């Protein structure tokens, strides 16, 4: 075994992979959230569609999309593999009485469970949005015109707005954000610790930032489908076959 494979198959090397990919996925969440928040503007999804088009066509973003998918797969594979290895290390006989709640946080002990819940959500989520927006054969998107672009773009907003009128999907989405919140609650600070970034000067700030990040990000992600479910202001545009003109200030009459 070369020193490289030895490094990344060691327990510390594998945790290192988890930390690097996990923190990278955190940065992705910020971008995703900022674009999702565009849906709450009262512009019929023009801003959201503009940014969805940007994410779907910008060559840097498209390249990063590949990195993101690889990072996600590495995080999922390594996380599950470590969970299996760690379970094996625990041994066959469990404690008859174990009060682990008195020495550690629930989220910290249940990262594999939370991650698995997120994986289930992610499969539904990607099938619904990502596959449809990237592959025409999987349903494709209606076309709209948005300001500042000289070509029509896909109406991903209507897919989201339609999805967020389905009660079970809104419930799944919002509940999954609880799992996301708990996963980030531990994962954010844990990533820094694994990378060796623990220092009495900065660690309290890293902990606070992680707790704030997990609550704010998961709450905002959860609020968007709930608002769009309960408010009449957010409606999907029926597919007519015609390209609809969108403006950033006024929503064209819904047909």
């Amino acid at each position: 075994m070369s020193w490289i494979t030895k490094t990344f198959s060691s327990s510390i090397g594998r945790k290192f992979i988890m930390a690097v990919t996990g923190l990278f996925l955190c940065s992705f969440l910020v971008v995703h959230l900022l674009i999702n928040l565009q849906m709450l503007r009262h512009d019929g999804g023009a801003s959201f569609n503009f940014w969805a088009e940007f994410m779907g066509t910008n060559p840097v973003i498209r390249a990063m999309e590949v990195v993101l998918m690889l990072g996600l797969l590495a995080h999922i594979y390594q996380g599950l593999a470590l969970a299996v290895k760690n379970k094996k290390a625990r041994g066959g006989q469990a404690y008859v009485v174990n009060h682990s709640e008195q020495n550690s946080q629930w989220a910290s002990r249940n990262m594999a469970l939370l991650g698995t819940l997120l994986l289930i959500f992610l499969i539904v989520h990607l099938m619904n949005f990502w596959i449809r927006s990237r592959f025409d054969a999987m349903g494709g998107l209606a076309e709209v015109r948005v300001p500042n672009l000289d070509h029509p773009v896909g109406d991903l907003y209507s897919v989201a707005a339609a999805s967020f009128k389905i009660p079970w999907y809104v419930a799944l989405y919002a509940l999954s954000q609880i799992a996301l919140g708990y996963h980030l609650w531990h994962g954010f600070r844990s990533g820094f610790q694994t990378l060796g970034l623990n220092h009495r000067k900065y660690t309290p700030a890293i902990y606070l930032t992680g707790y704030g990040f997990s609550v704010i990000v998961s709450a905002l992600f959860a609020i968007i489908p709930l608002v769009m479910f309960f408010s009449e202001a957010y409606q999907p545009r029926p597919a007519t076959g015609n390209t609809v003109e969108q403006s950033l200030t006024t929503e064209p009459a819904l047909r």
Partner: protein
Amino acid sequence: MAGSNPNAKPMNLTLKVWRQRNRNTEGRIVDYQVKDISPDMSFLEMLDVLNEDLLRQGEEPVAFDHDCREGICGSCNLFINGRAHGPEAGTTTCQLHMRKFSDGDTITIEPWRSAAFPVNKDLSVDRSAFDRIIQAGGYISINTGGTPDANEIPIPKDIADRAFEAATCIACGACVASCKNSSAMLFVSAKVSQLALLPQGHVERKTRVENMVAQMDKEGFGACSNIGSCAAECPVGISLENIAIMNREYINAKATSNNLA
């Protein structure tokens, strides 16, 4: 008895004790009653009383590890009521006193559980995995010359203090026992960071962390997921910062050491 509390009432307790004949047999919880336990007794003295009773009844006494009974040797290792070394923070089992319990309590006593710590008998486990990790690099080599003079190598006070903090690890294994992943990283990192902080440890610095981590993995301990139960249960307060230091040392060693294999 000098120093004892004359008002302390003796306690009667129900013990649920893990009994296991040897490594190859299944174990089980067995219930025992102990009577007239003084609150001034240590937990191990209470077990001594139980064993006296068992011997009188012609039964085999409960095997458990102990040596100094002063909280410094790291031999005693009991999982008491779901906590490593019992409910009291910063305390080894031998320094846990029965005044922390109440008359009529039921106390569950189990051995450390970990695939890398097989049960020898009853509450006694084999922790030789720790010895092999230390043998892999937890030392400094001084191969020649006479005894060095004290303070020959100046070490700043704060560095010496931090190294000493890490050196207080008594290798009891509570970190492994309480870790959901059965990870030994708090133990290994205490030794790695102690020796990495001191100039005497710098000669073997990179090879040490590489070899100790490799041995730790070979022994079948799990990977750290920064849960923190180890540090919370550690009787001498080894901090999680040591694990971060070890992670840095390891990655740095892997990137820059001359060991290609």
